């Protein structure tokens, strides 16, 4: 059930994110995640940032000690992989707005690639604290997306939050759908913009995960389990829940603030 594979490639994407590539034959689709285990350390859910073919990849942001350990993995090191788990973005081509904050671009990039391959017209609102942290900016450009950049410090593109850029785009151009991934406060704002402008929004959300099999309840989110019912949810399912952008559960199952 678990594969143990060597990391084949390590790419420093930004000062705080590293992509690890590895051969893993299981079929995967954009939106899905794997449970990746650094032996001797924790096993974490990570979205696949590369879903096509044998060579899959995850893009890890430095958060705490496990993600830091994961980032320091050198090619040749063995990691445990299980999955892919979870649902996928539905890849109906159209006029797509993709809103990524921080490491959220990790899961959005393969989705954008796939939907562009099906003929979609994609605009990406990509935000980061500062210019070097803009994850997959060049990858989005190469795949033919229009990329609108924002940084909190103004070091590149719009000076301010990506949510403003997204709101402006939604107000000025017609879109068929919005995909977003990033901090929940950010996604909440994108959902608000979407609903104001009548464009459906899908969010990729994160919760603490243990089994990834829809059993242990660690990832409970209202009536859903993010590991099997998500991670991609239509906004209508999330907004009624106090938990979206509100509390989440820590590893003990306790509700903790946003």
């Amino acid at each position: 059930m678990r594969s143990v594979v060597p990391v084949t490639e390590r790419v420093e994407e930004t000062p705080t994110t590293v992509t690890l590539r590895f051969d893993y034959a299981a079929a995967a689709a954009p939106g899905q995640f794997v449970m990746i285990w650094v032996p001797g350390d924790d096993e974490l859910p990570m979205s696949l940032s590369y879903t096509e073919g044998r060579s899959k990849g995850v893009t890890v942001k430095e958060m705490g000690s496990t993600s830091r350990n994961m980032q320091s993995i050198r090619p040749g090191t063995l990691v445990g992989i299980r999955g892919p788990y979870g649902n996928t973005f539905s890849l109906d081509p159209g006029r797509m707005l993709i809103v990524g904050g921080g490491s959220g671009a990790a899961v959005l990039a393969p989705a954008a690639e796939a939907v562009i391959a099906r003929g979609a017209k994609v605009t990406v609102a990509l935000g980061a604290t500062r210019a070097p942290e803009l994850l997959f900016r060049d990858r989005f450009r190469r795949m033919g997306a229009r990329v609108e950049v924002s940084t909190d410090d103004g070091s590149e593109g719009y000076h301010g939050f990506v949510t403003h850029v997204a709101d402006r785009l939604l107000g000025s151009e017609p879109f068929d759908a919005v995909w977003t991934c990033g901090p929940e406060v950010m996604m909440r704002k994108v959902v608000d913009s979407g609903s104001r402008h009548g464009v459906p929004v899908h969010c990729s959300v994160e919760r603490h995960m243990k089994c990834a099999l829809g059993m242990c309840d660690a990832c409970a989110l209202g009536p859903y389990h993010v590991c099997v019912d998500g991670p991609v949810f239509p906004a209508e399912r999330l907004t009624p829940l106090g938990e979206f952008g509100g509390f989440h559960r820590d590893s003990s199952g306790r509700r903790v603030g946003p």
Partner: protein
Amino acid sequence: MADLSARCGPLALRNPFLLASGIWGESGESLAGAWAAGAGGVVTKSIGSAPRFGYANPTIETYERWGMLNAMGLPNPGIDEYPKEIEIARRAGATVIGSIFGGDADEFARLGARMASTGVVALELNLSCPHAEGFGTEVGSDPKDVEAIVRRVVESSRLPVIAKLTPNTSDPVALALAAERGGASAVSAINTVRGLAIDVRLRRPVLAHGLGGLSGAAIKPVGLACVWQIYEKVSIPVIGVGGIMTADDALEYVMAGARAVEVGTAVAFEGIAVFGRLVRELGERLDALGFSELEDAVGVAHSAPSASSG
């Protein structure tokens, strides 16, 4: 269709399929969801005195579809936080059984009293988690401890008490008899079977905790043996747990002597819809086998005739 309602001592259940402890058991919405999916009742995650984060991942290993090893490490939000989850489940109409675990009879008694005040219909005592040190098997494998804990909880809570027993014992009957003496209204058997998995490429145990507990189809024979042995010697009702994936699995437990069953690992392999399927299939199966009530099947395998000598 056959009457599926289950009487298990003081408990009256709309059907015999309870959600097992530790599955969909941390959030009230999940408990409510299992009830909505058709469970006859839901057992909460085992709750302790204080929040516990549980062990690091990996906490799970699966064996195709026939088994699963876990060492969650009893993560739970603690008895101060948890009542609000029960409240959500109760508002949804669910029959909720509150599971608790502790290190000694005092702690169990305190937890029992607190849990009893949440409106649960019964308490299940986790006397059996095989991989949480200082809890579970240590207290649950000695009949004297089992009797003392059950007695104290019965006194402190005044609710029906179900003692959940470990299979990791030479004598499940002695544990069940101890629970009965202590005043338990029922016993449930079994919790997971102590197990381990090693990854030979990584040269280490797969689970972060090392030892874990085996569940799923692999342990159905083990659970059946425990229920069978207990039913022969103990008068209080038995709840069967372990490896139930189909209505026939549940019927095996019933015929071995169980009056209700709990379903855990099947939820991982099939989703919560497993409850609806089990309820439907059990009805059909009882009809086909000529039982008009589930009750009539309880323990029948103990009185099977031998072939008449021709």
